[in-house]
């Protein structure tokens, strides 16, 4: 894999050339830039993966990027999977699930009341039964939750967290959602009349940040 320590992930995925005017604009928000990179490193290259392994992290990120219709970003995360023993089968399963999960958002229901007229119905995504063996119950639950967050975040309930707990994710430390890469876009050079980089990676926005249960007795 690339060395993320030396290469800015948003710059890489968005195709922002070092030394470009867009890069100079990003420098004006250097804290935002540095800390977006730190978020990426904390999520994908942590000093301790604990029980949320690299494979699951990359699988979830690839799925999120994929259902956003960002195949290049999805492939970046899929590349991190392919090398493992079960990698090729997992990559195939994820690609198939990405196709099944594609839709348009946001949709979902508001609390019953005056906003109900704005309720929008859409896909309630569930992993195909045939692929659950390859993905595993825990990752399947994570993908379903990720889809909920990407497309219909206003539908989320406490019960959805219970589903994750039941699938073996711990609530104790890592109940967060992550941004793989936030949003990058930009505008072009000195003449400044063309969009140089509409590669807005708000796409790889959120994936579940839950940790699989291993030592649940520690947390009773």
């Amino acid at each position: 894999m690339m060395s993320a320590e030396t290469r800015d992930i948003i710059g890489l995925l968005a195709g922002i050339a070092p030394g470009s005017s867009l890069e100079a604009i990003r420098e004006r928000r250097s804290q935002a830039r540095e800390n977006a990179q730190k978020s990426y490193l904390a999520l994908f290259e942590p000093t301790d993966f604990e029980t949320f392994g690299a494979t699951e992290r990359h699988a979830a990120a690839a799925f999120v990027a994929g259902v956003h219709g960002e195949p290049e970003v999805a492939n970046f995360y899929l590349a991190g999977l392919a090398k493992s023993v079960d990698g090729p089968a997992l990559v195939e399963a994820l690609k198939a699930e990405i196709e099944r999960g594609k839709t348009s958002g946001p949709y979902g229901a508001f609390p019953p009341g005056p906003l109900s007229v704005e309720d929008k119905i859409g896909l309630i995504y569930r992993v195909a039964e045939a692929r659950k063996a390859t993905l595993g119950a825990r990752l399947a639950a994570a993908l379903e939750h990720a889809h909920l967050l990407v497309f219909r975040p206003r539908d989320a309930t406490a019960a959805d967290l219970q589903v994750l707990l039941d699938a073996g994710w711990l609530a104790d430390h890592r109940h967060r959602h992550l941004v793989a890469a936030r949003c990058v876009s930009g505008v072009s050079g000195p003449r400044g009349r063309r969009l140089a980089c509409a590669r807005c990676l708000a796409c790889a926005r959120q994936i579940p940040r839950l940790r699989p249960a291993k030592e649940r007795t520690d947390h009773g």
Partner: protein
Amino acid sequence: MDDSIVIQTSENQPVAFTQDELGWLPWLHPLPEAELTERHWAGLVDRSRSKSAYFRLLVRDPEVLEARTKTDKDIFYNTANGLPRAERELAAAATSRTNGCIYCASVHSRFATVHSRRSEDVQRLLDEGVGADLGARWNAVVRASVALTATPIAFGQQNIEELRRAGLDDAEIVDVIDSAAFFNWANRLMLSLGEPTTKVGA
């Protein structure tokens, strides 16, 4: 720590967008203040954030919270140059209105009003939705935020051109993008980890 969800009674759930102050109730257990270590305090960045159940929940992952908080502050509070604060808040409010985060929209519509003194226009965004006519410049910011909130992302050349016609330079446009993008993260955290309540102080 208790590895279970917290069931809230939802008696005081707001059913409409508002600029009024709301509370937020977590569905997972926040860390008790007494259990915060130095690493947690560093993750919170501002010690006052320990009073918030939301941040004491997120601080279970202090590395990511610290990076997230510093990103947040640079995007919204670094007003040394770039987009006026009011319009960054407008982008956050429009994003929250689109995703349906009543809590986030309440906070950032209030901030938009404070910094713009255009309370009625902000209220129209909440009441009528993101199609409300708020004048060319605000319309451009709202439309760009909505396009960035769509999945797949609908933001493109036409948004850039509209923002430029409204007088935004490239750096200001990047501030719009950052503000809307950051709230696509924040909305998902607040919508999926807890719920709003009209009971302030919750």
